[in-house]
């Protein structure tokens, strides 16, 4: 039912022009899928006469009998459903249909559970035509089905992770590749022994809850074992008393394992200060005075990295770094001889310690990485083939790896 005043307007404005625009077809009003409610979705068929200067107005009312109110206006050749807007398993409209989301607003509030009527008005150069009215009810949803791929991904990853941790518990000696920087450790220690100079090992600025610090202490254990074997001096200056206590235990144990408990010295680990630049200045002092033949920088670092490695490079020491602090990595790479980059640090600690949880996590991530690499390559090939063959068929697969809201 069109309000009388509008009808009047139509009668006056209408007849001056030739053929009036055709009304939009197939209009449907749905509850917007996968949302928190208070919103309706409008779908209608595209028409061959859609163009920029023909506009569509959306009118809405609390019932077909009530007064309609204009809530939106846009050109008729917009608001099409495109590939990527919705996943194929949760599509409110077909490709090429028009789609408009009508949200609750101050001008026109929409409540859940109440029916609303919607009509479209097509206007072109003064001529107007109304569509049929359609009704719909808004409701909140309990599951966002367009994110089901995300959920599947999380569940699958959980499964892979648990399985690989369980596998690593049965056999912690699964294959992991050698890491280049680790091979250099032996060389560095050998050289220190030859030159009769100490080895300096830093565990970074993180506390014991930091993953990279834990990795650094694991690697320290292996370095200490080799040091004990070669009878070289090890120096580990600290910034955190707790990390120091942990490292003391680790080094002592390493000497025992190497069969040289007698060679262990309590003062290999020592605390300097907790503040960043004073610690750096002190470590630089050690480098300049004692001229260690090898410097190890493992763990997480901040701005002090450059000050440390620059001084170390000046003394001619072999420098081996390993950090996940990506903002410092460029400096380590240019000033050190070997650098374990990011995840290589964790891998190195898993490789050396053979701790099942570490090894299992690494393996689990590797499986998932391989899967993602496969998706990237195969996906690109399919997408390209899709363009060549002019088909959307591959989107059934590609949609699985898109992020939908």
């Amino acid at each position: 039912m069109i309000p009388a005043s509008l009808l009047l307007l139509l009668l006056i404005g209408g007849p001056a022009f030739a053929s009036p625009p055709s009304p939009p077809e197939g209009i449907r009003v749905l509850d917007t899928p996968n949302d928190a409610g208070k919103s309706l979705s409008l779908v209608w068929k595209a028409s061959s006469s859609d163009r920029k200067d023909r506009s569509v107005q959306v009118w809405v009312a609390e019932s077909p009998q009530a007064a309609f109110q204009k809530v939106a206006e846009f050109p008729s050749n917009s608001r099409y459903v495109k590939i990527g807007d919705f996943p194929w398993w949760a599509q409110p409209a077909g490709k090429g249909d028009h789609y408009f989301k009508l949200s609750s607003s101050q001008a026109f509030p929409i409540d859940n559970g109440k029916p609303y009527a919607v009509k479209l008005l097509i206007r072109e150069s003064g001529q107007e035509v109304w569509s049929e009215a359609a009704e719909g009810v808004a409701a909140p949803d309990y599951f966002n089905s367009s994110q089901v791929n995300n959920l599947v991904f999380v569940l699958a990853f959980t499964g892979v992770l648990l399985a690989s941790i369980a596998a690593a518990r049965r056999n912690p000696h699964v294959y992991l590749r050698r890491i280049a920087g680790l091979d250099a450790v032996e060389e560095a220690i050998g050289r220190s022994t030859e030159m009769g100079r100490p080895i300096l090992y830093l565990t970074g600025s993180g506390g014991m809850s930091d993953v990279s610090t834990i990795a650094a202490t694991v690697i320290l254990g292996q370095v200490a074992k080799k040091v004990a074997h070669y009878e070289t001096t090890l120096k580990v200056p600290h910034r955190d008393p707790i990390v120091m206590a942990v490292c003391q235990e680790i080094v002592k144990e390493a000497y025992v394992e190497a069969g040289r408990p007698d060679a262990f010295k309590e003062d290999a680990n020592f605390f300097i200060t907790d503040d960043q630049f004073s610690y750096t200045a002190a470590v630089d002092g050690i480098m300049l005075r004692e001229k260690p033949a090898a410097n190890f920088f493992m763990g997480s670092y901040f701005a002090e990295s450059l000050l440390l490695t620059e001084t170390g490079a000046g003394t001619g020491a072999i420098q081996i770094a390993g950090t996940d602090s990506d903002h410092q990595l460029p400096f380590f790479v240019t000033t050190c001889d070997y650098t374990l980059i990011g995840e290589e640090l964790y891998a190195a600690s898993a490789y050396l310690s053979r701790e099942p949880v570490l090894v299992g996590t690494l393996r689990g991530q590797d499986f998932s990485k391989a899967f993602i690499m496969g998706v990237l390559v195969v996906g690109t090939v399919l997408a390209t083939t899709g363009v060549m063959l002019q088909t959307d068929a591959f989107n059934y697969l590609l949609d699985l790896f898109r992020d939908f809201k």
Partner: protein
Amino acid sequence: MIFLKRQLPLAITFVMGVAFALQYYIPHPVSEEAITKVSDWMKIISGFALVLGIASVFHVHAVKIRRQAPGWGYSGVLFAAIVVTMVVGFWSGGESKVDGGQTSFGWLYDYTMVPLQGTMFSILAFFIASAAYRAFRARSREASVLLAAAVVVMMGRVPLGQFLLPWTWDITQWLMNVLNSAVRRAILIGVSMGSVALSLKIILGKERSYLGGGKDQ
């Protein structure tokens, strides 16, 4: 007691973790309300967590002063700075400005904290220069590539470089948008898998270091 000390925290972690991971997939207002409520509590809890951090700094320096460890005088300076700032802050009612005029709290912030924080990291400019001269060597093919890219970007990102060698601007644009994006994206995917794995292990009780290495573990 063992239950309260060990099982209960693990159970809470599990329940909270699973509930709020699933929350993401539930658009219903009830789920939205739940996360907002808990977020509001989290805001207050973060306030307390800050107190914890501050208190531990207090503790470290108090011990230093008590033992008269080397440099304990500086810990005294630190304490004095905390106390003065707090007194001034409360006296100004926590406001840096009142009716357009600066309070003493605002003054303290503008003329001590701003220059101190700003200067702390600007000294690195000097150390970069010195490292550039003494340590940034093309000691391997990888390092040479790195340095070459760095030089191009340093040129392409400043007007003088754009003026002298206009192509550095185009190369920098391409390098940032394509090569750099590719690497950063790969790192992002890798690191995110690592963090998701860590979160999963925490929720499933395979990773417990966050509970601290207390004596009764």
